[in-house]
């Protein structure tokens, strides 16, 4: 009996050693299927490329080395940069303008731990064009406290443009470790210059 077991074990070992892998060639037949759940949403058929890739209303150039992050209704363009995506740059479009230009400049300054500006100081800020509209350019260094965060991140830089279009506000904001933001400032300029409204097709 034990000699039979011995032979069986040896044969099993040989089979394991010689077991062949799936053959993958230049042409393959599709043989796998998956059952569709009744709870699964029906996809939109014939969606054009901009719909598929979430760029229905805007066009822009993503700078080389930057990545797309999850976008939201508030942030139709949401990008990250840096070796571990520690820098962020996004476009926000708010119908109500979120309190006006001064309030938003001061909100950003507060996030960086800096004192508020008054109207006179706001007038002194440099101007930049965002999607054809002149806005104010903000550059603040300090310790950055993100919305909802409990701890400030030291030695950060925030740069951004705030522009008003009637009641609505357009915001481009870039924030990250200072050295990283400095090396990506040219990419920020490139991104801002490339932002355009997409015309209906």
């Amino acid at each position: 009996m034990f000699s039979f077991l011995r032979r069986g074990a040896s044969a099993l070992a040989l089979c394991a050693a010689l077991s062949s892998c799936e053959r993958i060639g230049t042409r393959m037949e599709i043989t796998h299927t998956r059952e569709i759940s009744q709870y699964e949403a029906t996809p939109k058929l014939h969606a054009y490329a901009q719909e598929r890739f979430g760029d229905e209303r805007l066009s822009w150039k993503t700078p080389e080395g930057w990545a797309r992050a999850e976008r939201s209704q508030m942030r139709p363009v949401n990008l990250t940069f840096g070796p571990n995506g520690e820098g962020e740059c996004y476009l926000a479009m708010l119908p109500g303008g979120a309190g006006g230009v001064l309030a938003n400049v001061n909100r950003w300054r507060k996030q960086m731990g800096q004192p508020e500006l008054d109207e006179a100081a706001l007038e002194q800020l440099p101007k930049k064009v965002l999607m054809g509209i002149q806005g104010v350019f903000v550059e603040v260094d300090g310790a950055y406290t993100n919305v909802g965060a409990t701890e400030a991140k030291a030695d950060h830089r925030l740069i951004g443009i705030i522009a008003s279009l009637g009641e609505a506000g357009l915001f481009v904001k870039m924030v990250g470790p200072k050295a990283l933001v400095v090396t990506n400032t040219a990419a920020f300029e490139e991104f801002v210059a490339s932002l355009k409204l997409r015309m209906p097709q």
Partner: protein
Amino acid sequence: MSAKPASLPARLFAFLSSYGLAVVVLSFLLLITYLGTVAQKDLGLLDSQRKYFDSWWLIHDFHLGDMVLPVPLPGGGLLMVALFFNMLCGAVIRIRKGWRTIGVLISHLAILFMLAAGFVSFLFKTEGAMPLFEGQASDQYQSYHERILEIRRFDAAGKGEPAARVIPMRHFADLAPGKARVFHAGDLPFEVQVTGYRRNANVVQSDEAGSIEGYRIQEVSNAKEDEANTSALEITVKIKDGAEQKAILWERAAEPFTVDAGGSAYTFALARMKWKLPFAIRLEDFQRELHPGTMKARKYTSHVTKITDGREEPKVVTMNVPVRDQGYVVYQASFSQGANGEQSVFTVAKNPSDQWPLWSCVAVAFGLCLHFLMHLVRFLRRALQSKTA
């Protein structure tokens, strides 16, 4: 008179059952466990697991100062197979059998059973995520790592077929730019050529030569955690009437690419593999408790309804208290805060050998207890005999 040389099977058996093989295999297992654990820091969990533990062999770069020394090593797969046969031949077949060794034999068989459990789990286990908003129901879970190219057919009224065609990731993951493979099926009115697969990529607007529909794939470095990677690839759909359509498929695309062929619409999507459950889960209420003053979770609790063939059953899933049914286990994994509110994230696993390691551990413990008990009894008996003598 010289002894008859051993036959090849006998020599193979002697090798497989040798102590030498056991020592070598266990030493290498110790080494690759150490190297694989350290490598997780740089490679991430999935890649280090695949390189060190799911492989037949590997090349590890030892850093000696400024010098890099590549050393080929046996992988975890090869070592586990070798250990299984070494145990089977040496510790089960070759071992002296009798009442004195019954405990050890039970323990050895239980260890073999544990190795078999690992093998069954490696081959057949499926695991994925099921994220649900309150009020939302689902009867499927989505793989963390396995990507698929999925083709679905819709009729003229927009009604989809109940099953999708699936091209598994192992059939296209090697198709870097410059490499292509054609996929076909007898009842499909087209063939699909796949190329340019990138494990982690953006799809960016572009008017450069070679861009497709105003877009191109921009490769980005792989995230350490594979779940964070969003893959992309290019397809060319070659319809049998001679027309061709090109598209980029991206995991994060909001909608699939559609091609009309043979009177039907076919959608193409790059997605994570989804498996269907024999029951549905509806999230009724999600509660989370945080440690005071922090965002760290103390406890997540999901009140769910399990729906099986229309029959509804209330259940509570919380950390370390999963719901088990029909071989599936639904765990509370995490939650996410999205634009649409709070989302409870469950991990669903199906593993035919789910409980085997537990049974194996119980059997190992029983075998060893029996063995030590028999030794103790023999020792006491001898001690008593020597006293009475």
